[in-house]
């Protein structure tokens, strides 16, 4: 039996996990990071567009601050987020980006003087002031008041991940890749680490730690059509669910991105539209202004995705062997702009589709279609990032439902969340490791190890007639079709039943090779049941939520229902032999909100079933603001009075900005 002891165990080496590992390591803890793949290959590397932080450096972001970022985030979430967490986030984001600048991210910088930009498909001249020359630049992204998305050309996630990973190497964090956590070790409602399978040798080992942080990213591969990497299977969330204690939050909140390329599903960054790219239908007509006259292509992702599908349903899609799609046209930005700022996009189009998007006219149009992109849901945590139910289990990044995204996250807010949560949660996590002792018996460890050993042996001994690959494929197609962008009770009901059947079928498979190492089919065989459990949480949660909010869109319940549904879905799996999650709810307290529910500012109006507390709280807030403004208080003091929040380290300090006292 191989047992490794450490102070702090982090499962997942994407941006979130690595940043958290630095928080722990810098506090002198013996920290281990586990990852399925070399950490620099984590899916964070794929983020192209950028990271939101309200620096307010460039012309188009002048006047930006935490308040605007906060309000965009809350609106984006369709009031589903935890506003306190959103505050913690927007307040730390500028610090995160400056920290990253210090670690070497070559952020694109402001260049003084005039330049041409395409805004709303019109050429516009922007002039940057000389005193901003050399500060961090930002671009436009959907759903934001100001140009707030900082970037490094179109490889933002890559440069961020490499800087953080190198910083971890520099600080001698113990990073171990090709190690997969397959279950959590816990006793008396406290988590003590994980059972881990070495993906090279097939050996099972136990990693024991004072606290464990899961940052395993999203679960896009539950869907067939997804922008996510093939390793995004949600195993972190699944093993937390399988403890029977920890809960998952808002699993039905799944984001679809408007512009993955057809058929490969590789994402073309939101930057395409942010920089001025437009969507066209079969007639070459730019249709978004018809639906969203104000924000057009830059309405939030859920809105754009739905409009695209709606337009296709109206018979305006472009037919292709892979079904109907929409055209994305960025050629109007000009070759020079594309070759400088959207080089990766151009490369993807050329390599995977043989299209040069810089070519003018229909030749340069790229086929796109909305696909699964981001999981707002995940391991439900407190503000500190610790599971509400299982002590010593922390989570951050896409794997978590820390809940700053609610039912829809804004583009650029997610890589931003990873590093910010890595800083904040990472510090709380480290403190937990410092404050707590390890008091677990080896017999408990034995028990968990033996259980997983047995599970693998059972799988290898199964002699049924089902193929695990088929089951997985069926699940993915089912999710696309019935738990996708447009949802309704009937299809969701069918999905739940069929997913449950599939879960049962996984007990009736046959793994051809009996080898314990280097056996990809075996890996599928223990992962797919876990994926099915997550899929069930999504489908069941979606079925029960009879409203439309953010990315969760019910055709049979078109309105956002603040009266009955201003609550977070919690899923748990109390019994190993259950074939269905247990769902409960957690209310959001309007009376504590800094920004009570209202109209988002995009999408159709009058689609809200109001909660009477909303107006009440709004009046309260307005009154307070008025009084304090009269008394000459600044925005920080007012904010503090409306909704106080706490941050570790020096993160609560004010962020300095040019042109702001």
């Amino acid at each position, binding site marked *: 039996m191989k047992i490794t002891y450490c102070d702090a165990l982090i499962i997942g080496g994407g941006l979130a996990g690595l940043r958290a590992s630095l928080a722990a390591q810098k506090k002198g803890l013996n920290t281990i990071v586990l990852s399925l*793949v070399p950490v620099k290959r984590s899916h964070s590397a*794929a983020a192209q567009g950028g990271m939101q932080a309200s620096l307010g450096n460039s012309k188009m972001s002048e006047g930006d601050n935490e308040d605007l970022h906060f309000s965009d985030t809350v609106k984006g979430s369709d009031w589903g987020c935890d506003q306190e967490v959103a505050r913690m986030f927007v307040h730390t984001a500028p610090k995160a980006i*400056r920290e990253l*600048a210090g670690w*070497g991210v070559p952020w694109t910088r402001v260049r003084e003087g005039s330049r041409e930009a395409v805004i709303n498909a019109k050429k516009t001249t922007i002039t940057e002031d000389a005193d901003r020359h050399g500060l961090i630049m930002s671009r436009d992204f959907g759903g934001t008041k100001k140009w707030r998305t900082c970037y490094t*050309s179109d490889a933002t996630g890559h440069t961020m991940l490499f800087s953080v990973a190198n*910083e971890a190497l520099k600080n001698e964090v113990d990073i171990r890749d090709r190690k997969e956590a397959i279950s959590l070790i816990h006793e008396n409602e406290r988590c003590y680490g994980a059972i881990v399978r070495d993906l090279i040798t097939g050996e099972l080992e136990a990693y024991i730690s004072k606290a464990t942080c899961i940052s395993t990213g999203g679960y896009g591969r539950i869907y067939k059509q997804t922008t996510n990497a093939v390793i995004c299977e949600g195993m972190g969330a699944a093993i937390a669910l399988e403890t029977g204690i920890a809960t998952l939050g808002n699993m039905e909140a799944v984001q679809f991105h408007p512009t993955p390329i057809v058929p490969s599903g590789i994402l073309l960054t939101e930057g395409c539209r942010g920089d001025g790219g437009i969507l066209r239908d079969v007639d070459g007509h730019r249709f978004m202004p018809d639906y969203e006259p104000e924000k057009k292509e830059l309405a939030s992702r859920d809105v754009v995705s739905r409009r695209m599908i709606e337009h296709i349903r109206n018979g305006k899609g472009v037919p292709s062997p892979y079904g109907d799609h929409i055209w994305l046209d960025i050629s109007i930005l000009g070759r020079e702009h594309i070759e400088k700022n959207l080089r990766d996009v151009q490369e*993807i189009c050329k390599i*995977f589709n043989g299209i040069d998007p810089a070519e003018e006219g229909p030749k340069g149009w790229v086929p796109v279609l909305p696909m699964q992109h981001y999981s707002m849901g995940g391991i439900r945590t407190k503000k500190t990032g610790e599971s509400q139910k299982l002590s010593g289990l922390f989570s951050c990044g896409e794997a978590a439902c820390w809940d700053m995204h609610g039912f829809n996250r804004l583009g650029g807010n997610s890589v931003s969340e990873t590093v910010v949560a890595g800083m904040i949660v990472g510090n709380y996590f480290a403190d937990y490791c410092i404050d707590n002792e390890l008091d677990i018996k080896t017999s408990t460890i034995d028990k968990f190890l033996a259980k997983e050993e047995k599970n693998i042996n059972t799988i290898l001994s199964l002699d049924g007639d089902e193929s695990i690959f088929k089951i997985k494929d069926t699940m993915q197609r089912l999710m696309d079709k019935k738990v996708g962008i447009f949802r309704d009770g009937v299809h969701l009901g069918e999905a739940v039943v069929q997913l449950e059947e599939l879960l049962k079928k996984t007990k009736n498979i046959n793994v051809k090779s009996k080898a314990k190492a280097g056996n990809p089919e075996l890996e599928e065989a223990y992962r797919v049941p876990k994926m099915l459990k997550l899929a069930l949480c999504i489908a069941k949660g979606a079925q029960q939520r009879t409203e439309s909010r953010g990315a969760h869109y019910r055709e049979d319940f078109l309105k956002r229902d603040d009266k009955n549904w201003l609550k977070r879905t919690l899923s748990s799996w109390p019994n190993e032999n259950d074939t269905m999650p247990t769902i409960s709810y957690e209310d959001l307290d309007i009376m504590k909100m800094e920004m009570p529910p209202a109209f988002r500012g995009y999408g159709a109006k009058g689609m809200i079933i109001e909660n009477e507390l909303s107006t009440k709280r709004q009046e309260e807030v307005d009154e307070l603001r008025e009084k304090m403004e009269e008394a000459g208080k600044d925005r920080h003091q007012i904010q503090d009075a409306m909704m106080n929040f706490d941050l570790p380290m*020096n993160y609560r300090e004010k962020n300095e900005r040019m042109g702001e006292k």
Partner: protein
Amino acid sequence: MSRDITISVLKFNPRDEDSKPEFVEYNLKETPGMTLFIALTKIREEIDADLSFDFVCRAGICGSCGMVVNGVPTLACRTLIENYPDGKLQLIPMPAFELIKDLSVNTGKWMDNMSTKVESWIVSNDEVDITKIEEKMDPDTADAVFELDRCIECGICVASCATALMRPDFVGPAGLNRIARFSIDPRDKRTDDDFYELIGDDNGIFGCMSLLSCEDHCPKHLPLQNKIAYLRRKLVSVK
């Protein structure tokens, strides 16, 4: 239009005593726009569930899927089958790296080792105060640093470089590029002297024999030729 293609893979499991390296042929039908990612996944799901290979992003971004295709190291996920007119592809795991199984090699380990060896991070004594406005940086410099920061550690340059194959301690083109990247970054306070300590020997810059296979195969088209020459000029004159 769908033709029959043959993919022959060098299979070997170094951890299995019974395993002998051998080419195994798989025949399948090409589908439109088929990449090696699609083809290999199909082979695993339908023909040989035991075939090991590594894909993560399947979009040419993460650097996981380097392999030798008909003699040339490339990213498999970006390899379109239709670019092979005779429909025959021979796949070999990349040399220079520890073989895990079949097409899967441990590039991560090599790269981490390299990164540590060349201290692939910003070295500076200046504390960054993250509550204050960031230090300015010339936009052109930032772009130049970014240009070199684009390396995805796929290892293709290493597998292409005969020097790296002959001499396992050579930091390789990727390692040299890393030094070039930090040496033009104004935030890094290291001097040429410091860089010399890292790569001023035959395992570093003076080991490169200018074969330029790295330059010719890097999927990210990094300017390796130019930057290696730059480093050589720079470090040969260190006193």
